[in-house]
Structure formats: C-alpha cells, structure tokens
C-alpha cells in the first residue's frame, strides 16, 4: 500500500489505464508539460510521450469535440476541462453531442470518453472557478456522473470510467487534491454506480458527495458524542445512482439528511430526496432534510465561502435540530 494524495491518485489512475490500454489518450489545457494546473497529471507526459499526452489550446469545444470524434472511431480519450465552470463554454458538445449521439443514431455509435474536471469550492476562487456542477451533468440523459471523495476511489473509479463504454463526467474536487490515503498496490478498478456505507448507524442516514463526505464523517463523530448515531453514505456516483444502498439505509434509519455543496435548487440531493419520499415513505420517521449551499453564486472571501458551503457545525446543528 502506498500513500497517495488525491492529485497523485489522478495521475496514478490515468497511468494505470494508459499502461494497460494503448487506445487511452489524455488531452487538455496544460496537462502535458505543466503537469496540470492542479498538478494532477504530473509525470504522464514523460512516461507516455507527447502523442498520448497532448496539450491543447484554450479551446474547450475543440477539446471535447476532438475527444468525442476520437471516441467514436476507436480511441478511449480522457479529456480534461480545467475547471468545471468551463463546461459552460463547451456544454453544447457535452450535453447535445456526447450525451445524445448514441441514442439519436439508434445505437450505431458508442462514445467511451472520460471528461475529467476540477469541481467545487474551498479554494477562494470566487463564483466562476468554484462551482459544484455535478447536477448539470446529472440532468442530461446519456452522461454518467462520478465524484470521488478519496484517493483510492479516484484510482478505482477513474479506471472504471475509462473502461466504461459510455461517456463519464468525472468530477475531481479541488479542495481534496491534497488529501492523502493508502491506495491499494497493483491494478485497482472499482465499479461505477455504487455508493459506499462509510459508517454504520441506526438513527439517521447522511448522504454526502465528494468534499462533503469528510465533513459528514466528522459530523457523525460529533453526533455520536451526543448519542445520535448517523449512517454515512458516500454517494460516489450520481448516474448510475445506487438507490439500493441509499434507500436501503433510509429504510433502516427512518431519516435522511443530504449534504450537498451545490446551490440549493435542484441539487443532486433533490432527486435522492424525491426517490426516498416516493419509495420509502412508510419508513420515514420525519422530514427529509437537505443541507446545501444557499441558492447563490459562491463568494470569494474565505469568511463568506465558509459560511456558504455546508460545514461540520452546520451539519451537526441541522441534524440535532431535525432529530428533535
């Protein structure tokens, strides 16, 4: 077992797949010589050469389009969009072309493509470099959506995404890049569409994603000190969504709290809450509660950003209040 940071895990996951499969290519802005602006692709150019690790111009439409055209014709490209906010500049390619072409053509083409992007706040970059945009992709039929919270999951889910025959949007969390963890030696491949129960508990279920996962775990520790025992689920994959695990936990505990970094309206937790209300109504002992960023663009100043995004304290207070 090696200690890897989340950013090292990105490079390790890509390297594992590029080593295994010569059709895997990496393209994006500054991914080669610079090793990525978040240093998540360090060493890949040296190891795999400039043909397979290609720097692109600042042309997000060209990046996604090139990756799509290549994916339709025999390659398995990994395309980096530096910040998830920049998906807005190529959303036509992502939402209209990558997502829909298989369906529209009656299944004539597959698009085995991974779009990696740095998502989320916590780095004081302000409203255009900090958004949590996993729900954008979640809302488009034809895209798979993954957001890992740990280095081991980065490697395993990235490998699963590369091997998947369909397009996957892979949201890496900026504030987690420095997080370290033991990552299994040797080839590591996880499964898309699987949530993970990280902590058992009988009183309530907390479902969290990406950077909200460690906060939910901290909150669960503090709640335990109050005699409230939370089951914490790392949702990991929004499409496919592992409702069996999430709703199974809700049926056991009778309460559901979601912790979402996205702004309130139509965040991923809204779909989870809706499913719980529709399918677990008889198991619920109280209202489903969503803990989210308010419905605002994310502010830059540390004091404001920290106040906006769900904190450990807010999770604890909301759960204590909600559990009565």
């Amino acid at each position, binding site marked *: 077992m090696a200690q890897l940071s989340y950013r090292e895990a990105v490079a390790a996951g890509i390297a594992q797949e590029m080593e295994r499969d010569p059709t895997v290519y990496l393209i994006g802005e500054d991914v080669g010589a610079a090793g990525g602006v978040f240093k998540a692709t360090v060493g890949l150019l040296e190891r795999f050469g400039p043909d397979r690790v290609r720097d692109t111009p600042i042309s997000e439409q*060209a990046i996604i389009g090139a990756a*799509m055209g290549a994916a339709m014709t025999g390659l398995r490209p990994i395309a980096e969009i530096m910040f998830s906010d920049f998906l807005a500049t190529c959303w036509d390619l992502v939402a209209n072309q990558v997502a829909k072409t298989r369906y529209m053509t009656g299944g004539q083409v597959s698009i085995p493509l991974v779009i990696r992007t740095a998502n989320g706040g916590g780095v004081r970059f302000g409203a255009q470099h900090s958004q949590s945009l996993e729900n954008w992709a979640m809302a488009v039929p034809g895209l798979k959506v993954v957001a890992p919270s740990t280095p081991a999951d980065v490697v395993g889910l990235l490998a699963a995404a590369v091997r998947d025959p369909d397009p996957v949007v892979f949201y890496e969390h900026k504030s987690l890049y420095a997080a370290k963890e033991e990552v299994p030696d040797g080839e590591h491949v996880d499964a898309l569409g699987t949530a993970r129960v990280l902590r058992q508990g009988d009183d309530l279920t907390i479902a969290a994603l990406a950077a909200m996962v460690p906060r939910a775990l901290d909150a669960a520790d503090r709640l335990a000190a109050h005699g409230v025992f939370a089951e914490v689920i790392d949702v990991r994959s929004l499409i496919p969504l592992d409702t069996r695990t999430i709703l199974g936990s809700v049926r056991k505990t009778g309460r559901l709290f979601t912790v979402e970094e996205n702004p309130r309206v139509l965040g991923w937790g809204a779909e989870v809450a809706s499913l719980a209300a529709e399918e677990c109504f008889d198991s619920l002992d109280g209202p489903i509660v969503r803990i989210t960023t308010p419905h605002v663009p994310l502010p830059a100043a540390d004091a404001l950003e920290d106040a906006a995004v769900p904190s450990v304290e807010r999770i604890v207070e909301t759960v204590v209040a909600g559990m009565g």
Partner: protein
Amino acid sequence: MTDTTIHAGAAAAEGLDRDSRLALYRLVAEIRTFEKRAYDLFLQSLVKGTSHLSLGQEAIAAGVALAMRPDDYTFCTYRGHAHTLARGAPMAAVMAELLGREGGLLAGKGGSMHLTSVEHGVMGSYAIVGAHLPIAAGAAWSAQVRGTGQVAVCFFGDGTTNIGAFHEALNLAAVWKLPVVFVCENNLYMEYTPIGAVTAVPNPAADRASAYGLEPIVVDGNDPEAVWAVARAAIARAREGGGPSLIEAKTYRHGGHSRADPGKYRPDEEVREWMTRDPLTTYRARLAAEGVEESTLSGIDADALAKVDLATAQAKDSPPPPVALVERDVWSDGSATWRN
C-alpha cells in the same frame, strides 16, 4: 478576394473518366430526385418535424463523395440527406427515417437532422451549428494516431464560419496537422439573413483560412467536377500527412432554409440568375455537349426516379417504430437504466 485561389470549370477535372462522370451525374440526379420527393412528402404531411433540403447544392455532396475512400469519414449538418446518400447509405432507410418509421436509418430515433450510417462512413448529422467541426477533427486525430490513412470530411454552411467552434476546430486541426477536410457550402444565406450582412469578410470561409495557415480555396460548388477536383487534392494532401484544408464551395439553395421557409427574402433577380447555374441541368448539358448520348442521360434520370419511387414505397410500407425504443440505447448495453 485578393490572394484567393479560384478553382472552377471542367479544366480542373482532368483525369475524370467517362464512367466516373456518369457516376457523378447519377449521384446529382438521385439526390435531386430524392430531395424533391422529400419536399412532396412534407406537403403531404408524411414527413413530420423540420427538414433542410440540398436542392441546388447537390454537386458538393456528389463531388466530394466521389473523391473519398470507402473507409473515410463524413460529418454532415442538419442539411445532410445529400451527403448521407452520396456515401451509399440505403435510400429507403433514409426516406423511412424522414417518415419516422421503424425501417429508418436510425429506427426513427434521430429524424431528418441526424442521419447517420456508420457502416458507410457517415459519422453523423449534427444539428447545432458548428458542433461537428471539432468532432470531425477528433475522428481525424484518431485516424492519425491509429495510422489508418483515413480522412475526415466535414460539411457545414456559411453561417458556421461565425461560431466559435469553427475557429477552435480549424486551429486545432492546423496545429495537430490533422487529416480533415472542412467543406463550407456557402449558399449565401446563414438562415434568412444574407451571410455578407453579418460577416466581416466577403468569403466567409476562404478569407479566414490564412488565420490558420491554410491556403484559401474557393470552388464553384455547382460544378460537380470542379468540386471533385479540389476535394481530391485536399483529401490526398490530408492522407499524405499534409494536414487540413478549408474549401469554400459557392452555391445556392433553390428553396428556403427549412421546410417552414419559402425563401421570400431573396431578390427575384438573384434567384433567377442562380437557377441558370442549376448544377443538375448545367452538368447534364455539359455531358451532352461533350458527347454523352441523350439516351444514357435519360436512362440515368429514369433510374433515379425509379430508385426514389421504390425507396418511397418501402418507406411508406414500414411501420412506426415500437414504443419500446423510447427507453433503448441511451447506454451501450442497450438500456436507459440510470439507477438500481
């Protein structure tokens, strides 16, 4: 137009033998007959939704297709019936797709604007202006790194030259020396607005070529042999590793932008002038003048009509697609499943 290379006329078509010229005429005639039939079927409400015809623009699809290798890639716009047929996609399936039938090329899932036939190299028809230029570049990139010698050809309209994806794709293709040929069908109107009224340069594609280190190429898009000649040269250059080309083919659509548009914004005199340059009648007249027997040409005309009649009958006979298709083929396992 300074420094713009003009390629036009039969002189450019040196090397095209009689059989190839007849094949070219046959393609033009088949596309013309198909598009007229498609228009008739709209009027009968058998074709639902919208559609965009290539009436008047047939020579470009035909000329380029004749210059392509069977394993080359075609990327079309929503005005893509012509290019799809020109690569050999089955006409009955194309017609059935317009009619929304099970026998359609896409089993009714895509419709007129998304014709695709991967087995014929038609990698899709893309209905958001500009989107497919970077996608075509990607297919070319794939061909380049796989070393297959395939070339991607990407057709688009004049209006596309003003959208960002055009410039992103041209730049990337030039920087990576990709085997892709971009073919601008300049029919003088972006939709309803004259392209010249909204574009800073007179030749919307060719005058931008130098920004990407490319040769400006303008061709008479109503002359199938001239189109074939420039396409052949560009495709050969791409195949040999010489990188992309940008061809601007001047043409004119005989009808409006789409089914809903009668095209009344165009001056009568302009329409009359362009109708004298109809690619079908002018090419037919040229072939006749250069010794092709009238019986041969009318035989091709009759074959085209019979082929379109048969395709129409087969399309009409095809049932509507089963509703189960709604939830098929979102994913590669055939399903639409998003949860467990």
